[in-house]
């Protein structure tokens, strides 16, 4: 199977928000009306029940032009995902589609992923069980993995009428993205393709009209050393240490028992 990606060309977005409704509809997510945001943006940022948000930034660019920047903000599906590294329950994983998904059965709602996502994407949703008890699960865009499995495109992509959102063969899309980038440079001199190599690329690739920081995105995100230390060293090492200590103790107990049996208990430890 060829690699497919979701491509977001923000310069084609006209801010209609159909993707937001399509997402809520397909994933059956509840509405979350917020207080007045001061702009026409509906939600300040992503939440556990709002997996994509169109952001609207107004700015006067360096060359004096007014630009109204729209961006379909959603999970990037990082090649090396912070949330995945952070999860102590291994509830977060990559699918064969390159989407990063949360296994709700495994998720215990600890929120480690929330604090470790550099993009502020993943969030905790609070639910109430049959007994009226609250519990939490991490939630975010899963690139409609269920749809992908059925050979359908993500719900947001199907709703996009300007082809701002595309789901297609990675090589093809990225080649077209380069062409598009060259074309729009005149109007958007800072335009760039946002597919950070520091996190081994993403399955949702953006063509941004301005620098990533203008959209509140890290310029060059990398998997933090802390996360490598933790996931790749601390966690296995910690488990090993637990095992080693236990083994040592058991070994000592057995050894002591054997030696005691020989009647060689000296060294003044047992003064009974």
């Amino acid at each position: 199977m060829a690699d497919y990606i979701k491509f977001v060309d923000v310069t084609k977005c006209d801010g209609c928000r159909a993707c937001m409704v399509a997402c809520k509809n397909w994933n059956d997510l509840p509405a979350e009306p917020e207080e007045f945001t001061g702009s026409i943006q509906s939600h300040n940022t992503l939440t556990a029940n709002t997996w994509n948000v169109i952001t609207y930034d107004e700015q006067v660019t360096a060359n004096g032009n007014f630009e109204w920047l729209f961006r379909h903000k959603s999970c990037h599906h990082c090649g090396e995902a912070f949330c995945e590294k952070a999860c102590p329950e291994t509830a977060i994983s990559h699918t064969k589609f390159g989407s990063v998904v949360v296994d709700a059965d495994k998720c215990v709602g600890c929120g480690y992923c929330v604090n470790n996502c550099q993009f502020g994407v993943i969030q905790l949703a609070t639910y109430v069980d049959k007994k009226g008890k609250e519990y939490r699960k991490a939630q975010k865009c899963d690139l409609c993995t269920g749809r992908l499995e059925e050979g359908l495109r993500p719900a947001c992509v199907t709703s996009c009428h300007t082809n701002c959102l595309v789901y297609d063969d990675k090589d093809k899309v990225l080649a077209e993205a380069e062409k598009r980038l060259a074309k729009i440079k005149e109007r958007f001199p800072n335009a760039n393709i946002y597919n950070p190599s520091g996190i081994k690329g993403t399955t949702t690739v953006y063509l941004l009209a301005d620098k990533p920081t203008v959209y509140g995105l890290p310029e060059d995100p990398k998997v933090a050393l802390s996360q490598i230390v933790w996931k790749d060293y601390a966690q296995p090492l910690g488990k090993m240490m637990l095992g080693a200590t236990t083994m040592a103790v058991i070994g000592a107990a057995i050894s002591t028992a054997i030696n005691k049996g020989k009647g060689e208990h000296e060294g003044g430890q047992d003064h009974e």
Partner: protein
Amino acid sequence: MTNHWNDLQYADVLMVIGANPAENHPISFRWISKAIEKGAKLISVDPRYTRTSQMANTYAQLRSGTDIAFIGGMINYILENELYHKEYVSAYTNASYIVDDQYSFKDGIFNGYDEKTRKYDKKQWGFKKDKEDKIIKDPTLKDPRCVFQLMKKHYSRYDIDTVVGVTGTDKETYKEICKAYASTGEVGKAGTILYAMGGTQHTVGTQNIRSYAILQLLLGNIGIAGGGVNALRGESNVQGSTDFGLLYHNVPGYMEVPTDADVTYQGFLDRITPKSGYLTNKPKFYTSMLKSFYGDNATKQNEFGYHFMPKLGAGKDYSYIRLFDAMYRKEFEGLMMFGANPVVGGPHASQSIKSLANLKWMVSIDLFETETSSFWKKEAGSDPASVQTEVIFLPACSSYEKEGSVTNSGRWMQYRWQAIKPKGESKADLEIVHMLARRLKELYKNSPNPSDMSLKALTWNYGESDHPDIDLVCREINGYDMKTKQQIKSFGDLKDDGSTSSGCWIYCGFYPENENLAKRRDNTNEGMSNFLNWSYAWPANRRILYNRASSDLNGKAWSKDRVGIVWNSVEGKWKGNDIPDFAATKGPDDPTFIDPFIMIAGGKGALFAGINEGPFPEHYEPYENPISNAFSSVQLNPAVQFGEKATNAKGDVSKYPIVATTYRVSEHWQSGSMTRNVPWLAELVPHMYIEISEELAKEKGIAYKDRIIVSSARGEIEAYALITKRFKPYKLKDKTVHHIGMPWHFGYNGIATGATANVLTPNIGDANTTIPEFKAFLCDIRRAK
């Protein structure tokens, strides 16, 4: 639309004025984006920077209500620089017609004006005729009394400096737009104008659209792919409803409603039938319509049931504003509303509430309880104890719960099937009307009263159950032979002798024999994305109106890239990518071979055409305006009628210095009675807000997220201040004027609630259509305590 949605992709330049398709017609951007990708230029002209403006190559600020100045300046630019499509203008428009000697224009007033009645005698704007009663023409367009020269003279006053001094547009931007749009006058190029309510909802609304049409005729942009004057209809089926006689002065197919001065059918027909052009066939259409109304009860002896028809009072206006005026005067007792919410959607909304309280009964047929159906409540500002109106609410079902057709802006009649069963007791509008009609007919069955004959004579044969057979309705709309009951194939086959019926002649042909063509879903593109086998477009499945004009005087396409229809001399007929909107076999031998505008007497595009306020669009200021008219001493459209004085408060610039306009957002629809009840839409735009510039906010001490109060001569509302760079103060000739804008979707019912913008809007309408002037009025703002 003279063209259709898919056709937008063929434009070289698209000018959006008085519309915001990115927000209000988002799907149109599928096609607009295609055009842009191919290198087309998109121009957005709007009082504020919209999402359409962001998608555009050029954005121009335009003070609300100054479209004619803006377009007039462009017309002047094109004429001065000779950028018009010369052959097209000379051959296909009435530019060469010599105008009657009586015609004059002086200081904002045309000849034939009666100040007392505020009316013109339109007959005084005729053309000069020879002894054979033929219009005298000067194909060289040099005669100083020809339409072309008079037009040139008229618009010579619209020089760029004066124009931008009125519209507040940046001069360089304006010049850039003139240049870009005029480039479509080149042979083979196409420019399209997209407009919506921003164009129409003004006291000069009709003339605004006329000015677009003139511009398009001058540039040879009508009848060709990627061209046209394109009204972006605001509802999925508003085209369909006006096609079927929604407006008080129309019966189905845009034919006239008789008045009580039309004593005989023949006399009436004589009055409404033009002497030349396709509409000379009107009597055939009218009689066939009467046959569909009254069936066998319509006979030659009783003038085909003409006298069963209700008549308008001669000279009386039954438009929306006037109805509410009449309601205010207690001139009628009852009101039935299908999906109407005037307390949110009508002008001077608080006044509407008072008028509704004068009714004896009111029926609201809607999906949700609307602000209108609960107008008697305290939240609406009423005193429930004193309201005596009996309010009945009938639950209607949504479009997904019923079967039927909608006609889109491109005149495509698209059939839709029921997706889910109606919820609860809700019923389709058609069922409600059907049940009502059957019960009424039953009640009046034995009435001896002659005035009840209208009802008794009416045929109502759509089945005997409460659920009508919609297929029978469709067949009747198309029409059939009265004797054989065979479906009519085309409106060309309709007769005026009572042997044929047709419920709506422009749709005749959509249901020939046994196939409802509106149900077709063949998406094969046979050429130029006309999709001739997808649904059915009226008239006669023609996709681009006046497509004869897509070819030159010899019948050859102006451009190889935009082939509409071309004359095939071998086969002796018009052929191409569209169905000819022209007599299919009319060849070069016929003198009318070069008359593409078949619906107009003479067949020429009307640069000069008398509507209520004159033959040429002239700029007048809105009812409420911040400056005096720069073009004449006449401030307001001289043909505008004033209604009920008590409901017609006017604000003065000294008290209300800020210009305001209203608009819609993508997420809410019309009065919001549906969308404000859908959680996923309500969360996207949950609050009512007022958009104001940073400069105005600073001046008024208004901070980010503050609540503000907007007041007009009609009332005041409170909402959030949305401070944005997208609104800028207008630098006009004499002063700087602030401009604000707000969505008009909100009311107190539903999930997303907020103040109703129409509390502020004036109760005055256009001189031709009486559409209210929602888009330009004066107000003041202050911070809420």
